[in-house]
């Protein structure tokens, strides 16, 4: 039995976060929350490491794009899904580097589809022969 995917949900709005947590939990994912750029970076430094970051770009203090770029510099291999209503950033180079860009709206199904696509890819890597089970059993990224 493989470990469920561990997703970091980064959004300044607690109600959005709690909704997404609920939706993802319903699909069997494990989740962690981050309310600011600082929290995201803290979560990425801590254990367990997330398998995937779903992040808004609209953060009040640190600009979302800068946070995204920091995440990309810190752990270039971590998959990111940008989930925002800042549609004007869709074609920004840093956003293009992310695994997916989804416009935030009421219906989370598009996000969930995207997550399952990324999850399938991660699962494929995990079940690859020779792939070592993570020591703490949490993240694929500990092996890389």
């Amino acid at each position, binding site marked *: 039995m493989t470990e469920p995917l561990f997703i970091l949900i980064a959004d300044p709005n607690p109600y959005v976060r709690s909704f997404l947590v609920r939706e993802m939990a319903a699909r069997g994912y494990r989740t962690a929350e981050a309310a600011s750029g600082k929290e995201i970076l803290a979560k990425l430094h801590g254990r367990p490491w997330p398998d995937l970051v779903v992040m808004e770009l609209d953060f009040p203090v640190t600009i979302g794009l800068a946070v995204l770029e920091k995440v990309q510099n810190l752990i270039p291999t971590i998959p990111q899904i940008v989930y925002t209503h800042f549609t004007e950033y869709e074609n920004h180079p840093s956003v293009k580097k992310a695994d997916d860009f989804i416009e935030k709206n009421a219906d*989370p199904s598009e996000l969930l589809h995207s997550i399952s696509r990324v999850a399938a890819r991660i699962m494929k890597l995990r079940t690859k022969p020779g792939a070592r089970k993570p020591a703490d059993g949490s993240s694929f990224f500990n092996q890389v």
Partner: protein
Amino acid sequence: MSWWPRPGISARIFINLILLLCMVFGIGLTTIWYSSQLNSMLHRLIAEDMAAFQASREMETELANQKGFVTYYFLDHDPKWLNELAVHRGAFLDWYDRAVAVDKKPEHQALLDQIIEKYQKYVADKDQVIEMYQAGQREKGESLHWRVRERFFELNVLCIRYKEANQDHINSIRAEGQTKVDRIFTLTVVFMSAAIVLGVLLVFFLFTQILIPIRRLSRKTALENAQTASGNEVSVLSNHVHGLMENMDRARTELEQSQARLMNSEKMAMVGKLATEVAHSIRNPMTSINMRLFSLRRNLELTDFQQEDFEVVAEEMRRLDNIVRNFLEFSRPHKLKKQQILLSRIIDMTVELLSYRLELHCVSVIRKQKTDISMIDGDPELLKEVFVNLIVNACEAMENGGEVVVSEEEAFFPDGRPCVRITVADNGPGMNEAVLCRALEPFETTKPSGTGLGLFIAVRIVEEHGGTLGLDSKEGEGTTFVLTFPVSREK
């Protein structure tokens, strides 16, 4: 620096012209004066002096002619000699009378008096000599005859003097005439030289102060306007000056317009910034609400009424979301999600959406639909926003209710392209001219709680569809919006 103020060009030319005219008048007047003097001199010369001169000459001749007859008579006693003498005496007196008549000069008169006095004595003595001869006193007569001869010579001298006096007089008149002619000549030469100098000065002034500057200006003008410099430079120049004045007017209008545009664009920059801030801070919680609504819809079992309430909440949330989106559109151009649509359908949806509000304001919407109206390419959400704006405006304008007539027709743009024209007319209080002028500008609102952005956004959306939004209103007669959209090219 001279104490005398330097006169202007026009004064200089004027003075010059006046002087020139004076010269011409001077020449004319002097010539007339002198010629009239010469004329009178000539008349006098011919009428008096020449007559007197002739008379004097004739007197001398007639006197000379009287000589010898008495001697001849003494020799042959033929009375015909006495007759001849009498004829010449008569002639002499005739000429003397004429001389007295024409010659009024006092010195000549004195001379004439002397002549007649001597002549009378001479004649009397001669008659005596004749009588003596007739009486046969030859010796006595002869001696008297010698004396008479002396008298004759004296008289002859007087006559010659008189003739010479006349000749001298004529000579003096000729000399006087010559002097006058010389004076006229001199004066004319002087005046003419002065006139020439003044004329040259005038021409110089005209050239240097007026014609050359005009030519220079008009040549520049001709260069600028690519006209030929030939022909009337003044008209070229005046055309150019008129052109300049027009240019100035145009420049001023453009300046005013650009100032207005600048002010407007400053306003717009502010709007953009504000809109972005507002939209961003509203959008996040709204997304959250929408998510929860979505979740509720999935899980709730609702009664019909509850379902309707829920739908209204959801619809209004969607509309709110659209409004926020529209705010955001200020900071960047719209991305139209165009599709072929029937405007009729969009208006249906708008009216449906607003049914509650229409009822609240006691406003009824009257549709004048046209069947088979052309489709247009448009973004349904944005167009719905436009009609919502117009109808809500109408509702808010008509505080005591009323009706909004929405009519559809096919028409043409001024350039001939086909279009769909929608007219939204209310029978509310209308607007006065001042409000009407600014109605379509951002932040212009008469409503206490209005943002003043509704109509502005509507205009922008319609223009982004390639259409136009016009507005006409009269106070007390309601307001009419006219929207035109190009017809879709795809069939």
